[in-house]
């Protein structure tokens, strides 16, 4: 795309998110979300092949339906309580519909169906935007309203998403779809702790964005598409594969890496609030996503692939990696030790 169009779309994208996050009136929130959606659409269909077009259509339909339900919910709320503020509102049907709308926007189960399709239709960088930036606006709304929402609904949606993300990702061969399902699972964590400790869900979101960014940068750098393409990547860029392995383990929540931090704090918070079964279920469901992360690691360099490599092993590994990759690596692997600081901040 022409760079001026790309820059216009990106500016609109960022502005819309900021409009939503800083809005006071429901109309502005809705308007921000709509601009968000509209500016994403050309980005998704940037390559003009049928799959991208189909992905765009699916994205448009779900997001439009979600925004419509959002404004419908806020209208009913205005009808019932005579105010348009995004402020403390009582839990009721409009709030439930609002929760559903946000769920659709975020890509949580049971409305997650669009995310894997879209992930296959777009390029890796656009998918990166969808899974990281696009979560900010809806979550901003829902975090502002966390007191008025139905606790049970959010928790069950969260658990359902974790489980769907786990089981759905097990049957996939495309790496982009795997990342989509992992996004569903992580969003489940965010939403699950939302009614109890929204600070923690914010923390989780931030760390998730960091990890996801790292992973997608690796995918963009090595142009990975399928699981089988992992077989020969170790010949081309071995250090990248090792770092991918560590990042995936961090995303799975294993201790010395950063990914353990948010999960640990969330589980601790759940147990403090006597929700031990929820904590157990959450941990067990995360095992499912850990499985397919490990599958990626396994195929990358723990097995010998059945095909012969048509590339001579590079002695000096030169990779065109993204400039941000080293910093993101360090952030996603080494941040566990600043946990006390994090606790005091949140």
């Amino acid at each position, binding site marked *: 795309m022409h760079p001026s169009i790309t820059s216009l779309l990106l500016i609109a994208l960022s502005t819309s998110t900021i409009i939503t996050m800083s809005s006071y009136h429901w109309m502005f929130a809705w308007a921000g979300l709509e601009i968000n959606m509209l500016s994403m659409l050309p980005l998704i269909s940037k390559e003009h092949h049928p799959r991208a077009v189909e992905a765009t259509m699916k994205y448009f339909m779900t997001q439009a339906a979600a925004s419509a339900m959002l404004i419908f919910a806020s209208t009913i709320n205005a009808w019932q309580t005579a105010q348009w503020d995004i402020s403390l509102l009582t839990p009721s049907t409009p709030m439930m519909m609002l929760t559903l709308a946000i769920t659709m926007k975020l890509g949580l189960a049971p409305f997650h169906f669009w995310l894997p399709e879209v992930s296959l239709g777009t390029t890796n960088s656009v998918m990166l935007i969808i899974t990281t930036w696009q979560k900010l606006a809806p979550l901003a709304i829902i975090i502002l309203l966390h007191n008025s929402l139905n606790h049970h609904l959010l928790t069950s949606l969260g658990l359902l998403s974790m489980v769907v993300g786990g*089981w759905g990702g097990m049957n996939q061969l495309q790496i982009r779809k795997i990342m989509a399902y992992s996004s569903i699972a992580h969003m489940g964590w965010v939403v699950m702790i939302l009614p109890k400790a929204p600070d923690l869900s914010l923390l989780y979101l931030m760390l998730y964005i960091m990890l996801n960014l790292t992973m997608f940068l690796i995918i963009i750098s090595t142009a990975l598409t399928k699981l089988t393409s992992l077989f020969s990547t170790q010949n081309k860029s071995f250090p990248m594969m090792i770092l991918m392995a560590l990042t995936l383990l961090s995303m799975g929540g294993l201790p010395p890496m950063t990914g353990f931090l948010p999960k640990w704090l969330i589980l601790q918070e759940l147990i403090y609030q006597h929700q031990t079964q929820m904590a157990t279920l959450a941990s067990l469901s995360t095992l499912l996503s850990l499985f397919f992360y490990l599958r990626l690691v396994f195929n990358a360099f723990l097995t010998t692939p059945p095909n012969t490599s048509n590339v001579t092993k590079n002695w000096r590994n030169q990779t065109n990696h993204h400039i941000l990759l080293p910093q993101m690596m360090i952030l996603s692997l080494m941040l566990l030790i600043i946990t006390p600081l994090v606790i005091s901040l949140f």
Partner: protein
Amino acid sequence: MIETQWITPINTMMLASISILLYPLMADTLFKTSMKMQARTAVKYAFFSTLATLIMFINLGMEINTTHINLISSTNFNVGLSFKFDYFTLMFCPTALFVTWSIMDFAKWYMAHDQEVNKFFKYLLIFLLAMLTLVSSNNLFQLFIGWEGVGIMSFLLIGWWRTRGEANTASMQAIIYNRLGDIGFILTLAWTGTNVASWELDQLFMLKPFDTLPLLALVLAAAAKSAQFGMHPWLLGAMEGPTPVSALLHSSTMVVAGIFLLIRLHPMMEDNELTRTTCLLLGAISTFMTAMCALTQNDIKKIIALSTASQLGLMMTTIGLNQPNLAFLHMCLHAFFKSKLFICSGIISHNLSNEQDIRKMGGIHKTMPITSSCFTIGNLALAGIPFMTGFYSKDAIIETMNSSTLNLGALLLTMAATVMTAAYTTRLIFLVQTGPPRHYPMQKITEDKTLSNAILRLSLGSIAIGPISAMTLDQTQTLPTTVTTLIKLSALGATMMGIFVSLIFIHKNKQNRPQKNNLSTFSNMLTFYSSLTHRSPTTHLLKKAQKVSTTLNDATWYEYSVPKFFSKTQLKMSKALSFLAQGKVKTYLAVFTMSLMTLIILTT
């Protein structure tokens, strides 16, 4: 008036006699040739020593219990090395040693060409020591040591010719059946250990009434060791061992260990009706079935083994009649003539080139006069002919039984067994000794002087010991002294009937045609007991064990329950979710609508 000056001699001589038996075992390794002692000599000295103690006991009526060392001592439970020299011990030891003396004389001739003859005698000595430990112990623990000792030695001696497959199988069978009995014994040990906190016999007798459980366990132990009907196959298989082994272990001493246990622990069983009835019926069935089997056997050792089992059944019946002293008397007297029968059969078969089939013997009474005379005497004693040794105990038992008010079935079975005993002993006498010789012509038939002396000694015992011991019997229970004439003559009548019927059949079937009727086959095949119980239950048990270990333990726990279960369920769920994501927007919108409706209904 207890004359305490006699305690030391009796005590010392008994312990010395037990210790002297150790000397040949150790002398071979420790001393030079000149100081070695033969096993027979040691047994002879031990016999005379115990005979002296027996005489002292008959004179004084003094019983001694001595305790020496505490083997296990804890808070309330002490187990020590303690000996009880009472009537039973002091009567049994000379008998056993006398019989062993004669058997060792015989074994010297029989095993003369064996290369490991010294080891054989040492095994016999160790067995004898274990037996004497069993009979002289004052607590159940020491008795169990002796019990297990005789079991082990029986195993080693039955499998003496270890290159023979049947001998190995038979010895394993003996061990297995004895082990079944040991379950009962250990149950008793455990029960008394926990409930009485002592294994001393004196302390056990003070606790009355006893529970049924340990008593029935004791009956099980005795039944297995003394080859009662359910557990008799091992005794028949034990005939694979050399004849001295059969004579010593499986006629006189080891198999009576079970009966001895019941006799010793009789005060515990006196009041318990269930135990007594069990003994009565078990003994009656045992004596009847084994006597029936002995009627049609053709192997001389098997006939004598079955007659041993029959007499053991009779002893068990007597215990069931609450007459342990009679049972003990029968035990001691039975030792004399049964061992003599085994020795004579051993001499006969060894002389005829190890021929054991009675259909192939005959005409012995001209070529081996002493042996055949002694054989006849032994058989007559076994049948209970008046005024031979067997008569005194057997007749007394049958009289007691006839005049008691107990089970009619047991009574009839025992009478039938008496008839059959007489029948097969007559058969033995006639087929083995009379008639034209049916063995191979060129045989080297010898009768050693030592050998003849041995069986002549035992014959003396078979004739003369009866009245002597009956007079010195320790009468603690009154025997019936007045019975009607018919009942008094019933035992004799049964015996005579058996002899006559047998003579008739022998004269009729001179050609010795094979029988074709079912009863004869049933009897010949030993009531088919082994065929029924040795194969299918064990196969089923082993198969079940294999199924449990491979299917339940191995496959289920290590494969199906965790790994495959998880993989199957996760795979199923994953496939279901993938199925749902079909790519059709209609599906998605349908899910959306349904969820919305449901949640609206649920939350309002």
